[in-house]
């Protein structure tokens, strides 16, 4: 439902950070009721652009017009007043508060006495969450929710603002197909009411499903704005990365070698139920399942991050006891967590320091760290994964989301673990870099590493796995070979059918 003139126009937008020109003379406009997609590689400047609108980047240059009137957005509060709501790429919830308290933080409905109307906070929040069919109890604390559920809470919070411009910076990076469907249905309802949406995502199929126009950024510059209808995926990718990308899943199959990891009846009350499987060298084992099916819990249990109630773990055929992440790492296991900000990165340490954090012992003698060897290793990964950073000494907090993800990935590649547990390894990573990561996985497998890959992206699971385990309610609902695995079969199993 696009109509009339733009509700929002941005002209000659520029933003400079120390050592980085994040945006250079960018133009952007948004029609009423439109879903306008922002597309670009990791570090292209998408988040920076929308943060200017949300008042989080007040030091930008250029002109912003709302309904043709020039505005200055200096604080997040001002943005709210202007009817702009944003869902940031990184989760910004307060873990110790409930979902409801987070949704209404700073805008709590009050009773006449001046106290917060706790009942209304919960009921209003619950109805927002229900509108999303999120299946989340609004009175649960956020720290008990999974990353995907937290993303739903973020969406609900943005909705509660009743904004006329809604910005979503990778809202679906941890969601599975069904939740994405709910979200899209909701976006359609909103746009029908005249709300305009700026949508950022690296999942290309979403863009075609929900977007009306697309603006491509590259290296902080505006490349093109065009309607999505009539544009092919290949064209968009080329505009984005400025080179030809042939295959999206360049899977190379390796003859599986000896057994690397065997799990027998691993259980944790209420979370995992008698999980058994084998993982061999050279193999990529995909783990699919819905939100809350126990995928992440399985990885955490294998890594010693959570205690288990029963079951046995064998590595190279020998029984092992894994009581802590340290034990796991000694056994050659690495775990790339799904929550990069909370569990993957030390934001105020440098790129180099984060990459080497899990393997510092290798770069030091008698406790003394060799910076040269550390830098050599780190710069290898920065080149290989094309991490966009002004230097190895840059604090990771200043990297774009996708580049942060590449740093976490590098940390585990650097640790030279032979059994890798990847939990949403390509979350927030652009199409070009994804292919590079898949190629790296191929190479790891060819070198005899064993990979367990959890992913919410079914295409990725199907495209990159040698075998797929589907989880449902803490159990393994079924196993599919690469040849058998189709979206439909996986979904059936994930929903508890067969």
């Amino acid at each position, binding site marked *: 439902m696009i109509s009339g003139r733009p509700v929002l126009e941005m002209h000659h937008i520029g933003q400079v950070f*120390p050592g980085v020109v994040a945006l250079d003379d960018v133009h952007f406009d948004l029609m009423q009721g439109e879903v306008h997609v922002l597309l670009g590689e990791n570090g292209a400047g998408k988040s920076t652009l929308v943060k200017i609108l949300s008042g989080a980047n007040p030091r930008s240059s250029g002109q912003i017009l709302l309904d043709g009137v020039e505005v200055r957005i200096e604080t997040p509060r001002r943005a709210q007043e202007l009817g702009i709501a944003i869902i940031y790429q990184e989760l910004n919830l307060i873990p110790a508060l409930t979902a409801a308290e987070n949704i209404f933080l700073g805008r709590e409905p009050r009773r006449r006495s001046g106290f917060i109307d706790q009942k209304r906070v919960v009921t209003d929040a619950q109805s927002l969450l229900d509108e999303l069919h999120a299946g989340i109890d609004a009175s649960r604390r956020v720290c008990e929710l999974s990353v995907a559920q937290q993303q739903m809470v973020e969406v609900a919070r943005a909705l509660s603002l009743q904004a006329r411009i809604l910005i979503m910076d990778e809202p679906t990076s941890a969601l599975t197909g069904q939740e994405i469907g709910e979200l899209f249905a909701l976006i359609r309802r909103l746009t029908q009411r005249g709300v305009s949406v700026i949508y950022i995502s690296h999942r290309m199929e979403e863009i075609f499903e929900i977007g009306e126009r697309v603006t491509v950024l590259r290296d902080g510059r505006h490349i093109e704005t065009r309607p999505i209808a009539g544009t092919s995926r290949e064209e968009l990718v080329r505009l984005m990365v400025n080179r030809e990308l042939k295959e999206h899943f360049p899977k190379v199959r390796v003859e599986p070698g000896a057994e690397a990891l065997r799990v027998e009846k691993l259980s944790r009350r209420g979370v995992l139920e008698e999980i058994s499987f084998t993982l061999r060298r050279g193999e990529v084992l995909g783990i699919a399942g819905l939100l809350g099916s126990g995928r992440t819990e399985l990885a955490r249990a294998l*890594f010693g*991050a959570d205690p288990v109630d029963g079951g046995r773990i064998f590595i190279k055929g020998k029984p092992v006891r894994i009581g802590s*992440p*340290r034990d*796991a*790492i*000694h056994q050659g296991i690495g*775990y790339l*967590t799904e929550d990069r900000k*909370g*569990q*993957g*990165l*030390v*934001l*105020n*340490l440098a790129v180099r*320091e984060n990459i080497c*954090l*899990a393997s*510092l*012992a290798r770069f*030091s003698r008698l*406790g*003394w*760290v060799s*910076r040269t060897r550390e830098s050599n290793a780190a710069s290898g990964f920065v080149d290989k994964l094309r991490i966009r950073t002004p230097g190895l000494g840059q604090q990771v907090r200043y990297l774009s989301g996708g580049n942060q993800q590449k740093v976490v990935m590098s*940390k585990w590649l650097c*640790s030279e673990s032979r059994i890798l547990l990847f939990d949403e390894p390509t979350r927030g990573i652009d199409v070009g870099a994804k292919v590079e990561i898949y190629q790296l996985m191929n190479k790891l497998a060819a070198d005899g590493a064993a990979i367990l890959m959890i992913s919410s992206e079914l295409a990725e699971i199907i495209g990159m796995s040698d075998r797929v385990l589907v989880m449902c309610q803490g159990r393994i609902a079924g196993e599919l070979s690469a040849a058998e695995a189709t979206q439909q079969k996986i979904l059936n199993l994930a929903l508890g059918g067969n």
Partner: protein
Amino acid sequence: MRVKSLFLQHGRQLTTLFVLILLSAALWALSPHFMSLSNWLNIAQQTAINAIIAAGMTFVIISAGIDLSVGSILALSGVVMASALQAGAPVPLALLLCLVVGALCGSANGLLIARGKLPPFIATLGMMSVARGAALIFSDGRPVSGFAPGFRAIANGEFLAIPLPVWIMAAVYLIAHLVLSRTRLGRYTYAIGGNEEATLLSGVNVKLHKTLVYSLAGLLSALAAILLTARLNSAQPIAGMNYELDAIAATVIGGTSLLGGEGQIFGTLIGAFIMGVLRNGLNLLGVSSFVQQTVIGAVIIVAVLLDMMMKKRRS
């Protein structure tokens, strides 16, 4: 360009240094005595004790902790050492004993925090009381005094015309700097303070390193006890009262964030000097100790405010 990158890297320390220079200039204008070599050596000597404790505090605060027990640990290790000296123990042995007592108290803190999962504030608040009580029990509440000249030389000896405590302080800071910037312990201290969960999930022995950090703080308190006892020629069970506040102040003025994960050791040294210079200058000006107290408090607040404003400007 070099200047710019220097500023980006060490901007925070340069601001603190600038405050110190400004303060010194003001005091010089007010009291010509201030800018003499002997006065500066005096300041350095008086700053040494706080600075040494603050070095340990900096490690603790970077790891996102706090240590309230440093003053009490100083008192306890001081009276234990003094009693050993009086009982005729050779000086090196007494010094070693002192350092061991300090390190043990520190590791007790560390174990309570890392293994017992107590909040650092609570664990060290308890230790503050326990160690103080132990010092009083051990010494019967009386000062232990009168030592051989060999021991007292630690405080009044000189090397190249510079008092030994100043040398010791310099050595502590040099080593602390190297440990923080070049060793695994240092790296893990920042990492734990920045994101303990991520550090743990990277396979770092978080418990061990936390314990080491608190042990180090205890050890440095004991080192300060040696200097103080030698200077006063007496060990007091009530020594070191409020020293934790001075150490925290020096650390925070020096730019270390109480939230952890950030900070530079030389910032703390400058912070300790700001406090030392201020005390010395106010003394020279004949300002009463009551007023001094107020002024120092105000300076702490202004210094931190200034820093936060600068930080905002830069980001």
